[in-house]
């Protein structure tokens, strides 16, 4: 039967089910197919903090959202056009987010009175009109999967597990995706269990064929490949990009990589990833706690490694004292904070940007630390290299801020050729630099104010460092009042010096007519960009700038801000960057804040920006 194929510019799909239903895997696969096909895309995985919350409950729902388009896009989309819901809980938990008229594909298998009651429904929404705003396809996906696998000899339970593949097959048909990749993937993943591989492939094909054959779906859709800059692309999550960025920085600086870390969501995957790359000289140390993690990294830094520690908010709080020591020792160290919802344990699997001020001020005394932030999953790669560059060049701990949204979200990424990356020249001290052949471990480079890095093993440069205030140049303990004042200001000056080598801030103001500037940092890049496009589409000029460097700010930031009547700062916190900007530049920046554990929705943000443009 020949079917209609309709062209779309963009689609937002969300698939949702129990945490045990394999939704993240299904989402990943659909993303890969879509990436292979050449669409631009952005993803948003969302899962509960529990490993396996009880089946069929709202708390146990896991979902994966994918936005893909024939043009470049910036966010995983606000409101799904399509929801695939594998059980009543998944339907209930996600219904509120759908746009009117959205397509709903629901596995009706589990819509029993009991299951419905469990999520607080006393009648069946598939039947009672609840869903009339939507294009509902209630299908017994589970049963169809079981039927497809009837001959395999698998138990009902095992066979039922493949229902996600059935759903994926159906989606693949609907959106005209290539299927070879998925089949190869399944074969590879279950290479040791061929009967499971077979079942999954059968279910996947059955789903595809069901779309092709049945009359339920009158149309398939096509979203043309996007035109992106030329190059080789892959899909990548933020944590993976960050890990690769660190290895690349290690190669470009010629220093072995050392990671000292303690597992914590959503940072653990960086530890997992790096532990797999020992052949590149990467040492990973799973420490007894966060303090030992950063401590070991600092020890490795003293020994001449590119030293890194990774954590999330609660773990970063524990590292404060040691970060202060690193400031005092003036050794390079990259501290990655993959932010999550706080305070305290907060919302471990949700995203937030509320550690900026902790990164700035979370330790005793005047202990300034440069801060860089990543703005998209792929950008985590570049941000990691930039953090390493600053740390190594200025001999200082550096914060690299990412967050749960970047960490797990993915996007197509143009893979750089390693030799296009900046080199990070590092030169260990090898000769005495003081009078009479002495070594002065705190004699500074006049340009960067960096002190020499003399690693153990270098004859003649034996020296001692420590956390007590040090005399200028010699580094000996000093309680001298003027020396202390000098050293406090010098450490600050060194961090301020970072700005000198930064490029001017890029401002996106196509018409040049904008009176309002939207300033952002970190993972709000996508939503802000999307919101700004919406505003512009309505004919209003508006400018956007996004900060990679939060400390120090780029040197021209003040001048940029002064070009605009109003500056708006959207943040997933209560206004942390806004506070820093207000204090430094004394401008009445408007803070737009949302602390919902979720990225901004472009649509809502656009409305708020429009409000500022309209009413100032």
């Amino acid at each position, binding site marked *: 039967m020949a079917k209609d194929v309709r062209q779309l510019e963009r689609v937002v799909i969300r698939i949702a089910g129990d945490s045990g239903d394999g939704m993240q895997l299904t989402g990943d696969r659909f993303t890969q197919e879509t990436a292979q096909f050449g669409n631009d895309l952005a993803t948003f995985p969302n899962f509960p903090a529990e490993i396996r919350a009880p089946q069929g409950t709202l708390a146990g729902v896991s979902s994966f959202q994918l936005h893909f388009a024939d043009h470049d896009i910036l966010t995983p989309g606000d409101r799904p056009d399509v929801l695939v819901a594998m059980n009543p809980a998944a339907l209930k938990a996600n219904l509120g987010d759908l746009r009117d008229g959205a397509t709903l594909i629901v596995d009706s298998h589990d819509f029993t009175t009991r299951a419905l009651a469990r999520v607080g429904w006393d009648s069946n929404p598939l039947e009672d009109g609840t869903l009339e705003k939507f294009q509902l396809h209630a299908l017994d996906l589970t049963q169809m999967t079981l039927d497809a696998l009837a001959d395999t000899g698998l138990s009902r339970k095992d066979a039922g597990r493949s229902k996600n593949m059935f759903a994926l097959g159906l989606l693949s048909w609907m959106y005209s995706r290539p299927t070879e990749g998925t089949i190869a993937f399944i074969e590879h993943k279950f290479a040791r269990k061929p009967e499971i591989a077979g079942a999954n492939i059968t279910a996947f094909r059955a789903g595809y064929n069901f779309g092709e054959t049945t009359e339920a779906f009158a149309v398939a859709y096509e979203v043309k490949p996007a035109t992106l800059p030329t190059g080789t692309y892959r899909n990548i999550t933020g944590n993976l990009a960050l890990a690769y960025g660190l290895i690349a920085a290690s190669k470009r600086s010629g220093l072995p990589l050392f990671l000292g870390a303690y597992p914590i969501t959503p940072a653990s995957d960086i530890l997992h990833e790096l532990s797999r790359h020992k052949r*590149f*000289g990467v040492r990973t140390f799973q420490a007894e706690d966060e303090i030992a993690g950063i401590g070991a990294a600092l020890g490795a*830094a003293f020994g001449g490694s590119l030293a890194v520690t990774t954590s999330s908010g609660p773990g970063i709080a524990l590292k404060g004292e040691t970060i202060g020591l690193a400031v005092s020792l003036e050794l390079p160290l990259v501290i990655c904070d993959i932010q999550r919802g706080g305070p305290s344990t907060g919302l471990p699997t949700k995203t937030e940007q509320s550690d900026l001020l902790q990164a700035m001020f979370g330790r005793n005394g005047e202990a300034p630390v440069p801060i860089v932030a990543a703005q998209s999953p792929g950008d985590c790669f570049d941000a990691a290299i930039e953090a390493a560059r600053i740390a190594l060049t200025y001999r200082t701990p550096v914060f690299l801020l990412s967050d749960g949204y970047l960490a797990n979200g993915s996007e197509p990424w143009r893979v750089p050729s390693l030799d296009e990356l900046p080199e990070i020249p590092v030169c260990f001290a090898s000769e005495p630099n003081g009078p009479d052949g002495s070594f002065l471990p705190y004699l500074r480079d006049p340009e960067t104010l960096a002190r020499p890095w003399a690693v153990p093993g270098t004859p003649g440069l034996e020296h*001692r*460092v420590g956390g007590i205030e040090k005399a200028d140049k010699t580094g000996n303990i000093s309680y001298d009042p003027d020396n202390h004042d000098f050293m406090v200001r010098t450490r600050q000056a060194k961090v301020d010096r970072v700005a000198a080598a930064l490029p001017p801030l890029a401002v996106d103001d196509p018409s040049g007519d904008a009176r309002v500037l939207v300033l952002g940092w970190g993972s709000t890049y996508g939503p802000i960009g999307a919101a700004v496009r919406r505003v512009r589409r309505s004919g209003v000029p508006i400018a956007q700038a996004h900060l990679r460097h939060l400390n120090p700010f780029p040197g021209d930031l003040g001048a940029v801000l002064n070009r605009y009547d109003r500056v708006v700062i959207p943040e997933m916190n209560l206004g942390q960057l806004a506070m820093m900007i207000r204090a430094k530049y004394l401008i009445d920046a408007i803070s737009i804040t949302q602390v919902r554990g979720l990225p901004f929705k472009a649509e809502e943000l656009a409305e708020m920006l429009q409000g500022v443009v309209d009413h100032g």
Partner: protein
Amino acid sequence: MADLGLKAKDFKSDQEVRWCPGCGDYAILAAVQGFMPELGIPRENIVFVSGIGCSSRFPYYMNTYGMHSIHGRAPAIATGLSTSRPDLSVWVVTGDGDSLSIGGNHLIHALRRNVNLKILLFNNRIYGLTKGQYSPTSELGKITKSTPMGSLDRPFNPVSVALGAEGTFVARTLDSDRKHLTSVLRAAAAHQGTALIEIYQNCNIFNDGAFDLLKESDSREDWIIPLEHGRPIRFGKDGSKAVVRASDGSLTVADQVDEDDPRLVIHDAHVENPSYAFSLARLSSSDARYAPMGVIRSVTRPTYDHLMTDQLDTAAAAAPGDESALQKLILGNDTWQVA
């Protein structure tokens, strides 16, 4: 070990030593500086890492690489250093508060990992630097600035703690006995892995005389239980006391023990099962004054540092780790071209 022609004075830094006059730390410093040439390791390959406390000022006085870090964290910092630079000889200097109060966790984890660290624990049973609060090794009922009615918590026996934490090398010695101290340093340096040396150290300002019983000529032979591998554990003024095995298997001290008494214990530092060493350590619980001294346990196990290096080597042998391999890794398996 190679004789590099170094002398004790080569290990003295130009920094003025700033402990209180009479502090036991001086003797330990002198002993360590005196021992260093024996190591046969060039100064630049030696690193001293310490925490915070009087004792932790130690690295400043050694003309080697050194780090005076923060309170309790030296074992963690040293672990990173030693693991990333297994070519170095890494020494940790710490106090009873530094290592057993705030730093207890890092200590026990270093021990179980068997990182190649030589840990010198200066135990003066008091917080010196902060002027005299009780420490986790202070005796029960200790009256100090923070415990005017006496402390309430049972002290740790550092040797027991280390043995409970899978320590491979545990020894004890005394600040004032330079020869013994040196012999223990020598054994520790020869050990592959974490070596914990508890050094009884007198703080003459805040806990003076804590170890007098072990120092004064009329009592020390009664309370020091000297341990030498392969030798019967005998002590006492006339050598008639000994450590014997009771019928229930436990170790106790007995008087008037003959040379050929079958109960007499021959010290074996190398038994794999730490129960024996633990029993020795607990002689102090029968009478707190007993102090087994010397190498209590020394067994062989691969070190963490070398195991990690081996994994890196194995991985590198199995697949290339060069720039083009990295390029491949970053590309991954699912790429597409945009032309």
